[in-house]
């Protein structure tokens, strides 16, 4: 019998453990559908704020060898525009995860109340963007206290699982994860882009990114993400989505073994093409067959045994 790739994490049923990470494509419904057609098990929309945002001035993304760096700055059409954009989601054949942002707990709560519809399978709250003033790390959302307050505010209004997205940049990631769990989070996603970093063009004598610095993603951050997943798995009982640098089936297996129940894929869309989801699924299946795993659960967290 062929190994079973399906997972069911906090009531999100997925045919495989691969989730499109927020902010890579996902600006439009059509784009999510395109990604779903390329084999993703679930898709996340690009984070939405109450007000419309143009984001940082381009360049907003660069790659430097295997590293990707971005400072997109949360461009999004705002609550009203996004609500129109993300309706009729039944067109998308896989679960759609919302992503909402605010500058404080009240704004997060507002977004949860006014943006979320029953069409979403879950909502993710990134408390971890490293390069947008007022938000995430720069908004002071990375502390256990802020994590607790924001999670509570969202839980109050969201009639769906709430996923708290953390950053590897936080020192005691286990403590932050515990704060989220205690406040009612249904799952943890680690990690957002890390660093941040700066790339300077030595001829222009200027940082390349319009914002100056930006978060790192891509294959080289995978070891950091795996370590975070490992730490969070030791700290909480809610499921973990492991995100960061996964581009191959073996890398996905590594995340699962570290303790992830599902795996986020972002930069992989660049490194291996939009069909990265199909590729990773196939490779994961091959790996499971070779190593004799019958289902994803058999791998989750086995490094901790």
């Amino acid at each position, binding site marked *: 019998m062929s190994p079973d790739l399906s997972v069911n994490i906090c009531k999100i049923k997925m045919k495989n453990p691969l989730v499109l990470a927020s*902010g*890579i*494509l*996902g*600006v*439009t*419904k*059509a*784009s*999510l*559908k*395109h*990604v779903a*057609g390329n084999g993703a098990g679930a898709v996340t929309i*690009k984070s939405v704020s109450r007000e*419309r*945002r*143009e*984001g940082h*001035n*381009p*360049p*907003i*993304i*660069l*790659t*430097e*060898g*295997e590293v*990707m760096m*971005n400072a*997109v700055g949360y*461009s*999004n*059409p*705002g609550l009203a*525009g*996004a609500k*129109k*954009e993300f309706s009729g989601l039944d067109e998308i054949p896989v679960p759609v995860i919302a992503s909402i942002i605010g500058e404080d707990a009240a704004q997060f709560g507002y977004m949860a109340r006014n943006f979320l519809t029953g069409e979403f399978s879950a909502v993710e709250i990134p408390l971890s963007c490293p390069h947008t003033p007022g938000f995430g790390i720069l908004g002071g959302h990375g502390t256990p206290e802020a994590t607790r307050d924001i999670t509570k505010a969202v839980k109050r209004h969201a009639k769906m699982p709430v996923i708290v997205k953390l950053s590897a940049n936080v020192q005691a990631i286990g403590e932050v994860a515990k704060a989220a769990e205690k406040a009612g989070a249904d799952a943890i996603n680690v990690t957002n882009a890390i660093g941040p970093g700066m*790339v300077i*063009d030595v*001829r*222009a004598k*200027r940082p*390349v990114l*319009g914002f100056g610095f930006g978060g790192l993603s891509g*294959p080289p951050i995978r070891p950091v993400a795996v370590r975070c997943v490992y730490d969070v798995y030791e700290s909480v009982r809610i499921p973990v989505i492991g995100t960061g640098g996964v*581009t*191959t089936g*073996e*890398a996905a297996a590594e995340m699962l073994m570290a303790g992830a129940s599902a795996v986020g894929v972002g*930069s992989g*869309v*660049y*490194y*291996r093409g*939009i069909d990265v989801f199909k590729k990773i699924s196939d490779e994961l299946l091959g790996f499971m067959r070779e190593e004799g795993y019958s289902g994803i659960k058999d791998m989750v967290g086995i490094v901790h045994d």
Partner: protein
Amino acid sequence: MTTAQRSERPRMLVIEKITAEAKDTSSFWFTGDLKAKPGQFVMLWIPGTGLKPFGVSYQDDGRFAVTVRKIGTFTEKLFGMKAGDRLGVQGPYGRGFSGKGGRIVLVGGGYGAAPLSFLADELVREGKEVFFINGAATKDHVLYRERFKGGKVHMIYSTDDGSLGHRGFCTDCLTGLLSKHKIGRVFCCGPEMMLRKAFEICLEKDIPAEFSLERHLKCGFGVCGSCCLDGTGWRVCREGPVFALDDMKKIAEFGQYKRDASGRVVKI
């Protein structure tokens, strides 16, 4: 297991020369082996100002150029630069024109003539017969009037005010050509309304055709999602900017609307 990738960031290149092509339109020349295909674009970086896409308009012997129309903030800054200054160049990106077909028609409106002129060079090199319908607002806005003087490309001009060639829509000339000659394929680039007209003509006459679309590009290499098209979710910067007629049918927003820097829908 990931393949080693080139780095997606601008390289600072010296502007070799700037040549005026028409009113408010100039070509910026660089030394370097870009290895672009006609229809592909580069992202130009002006440090401190921004990053914008421009189609490649010339390429041979280790030189290439883009042809730019002065429109707003970025392009005004660009027009303030001079030969010897440096500019960041990134790419080439996107999928270009197939170049397929025997007798070929190019339909260019405004700076849309830019990528088509590079395509024309290549087609002539391959010995193909090429009709180039070159449309603009007025005679003063017409690009490349000297470029194809050799006669190997049949130039057909069209202006809104009739100051050069046909008066009116350049797509009228397409209708004319298609009824006179057996045409293998049509390649179009220009304002979306023009593209839409050309699309309808080719659809009706059942002529193979390809269209280069413009949307708001931020990254240029398929990650940010700002250029995705409704109907299919295709990325203009990656699956495009050139799409074949059959694919265009699936692009629901074509000729209707596009999105701005925030992802908000705006009418065309």
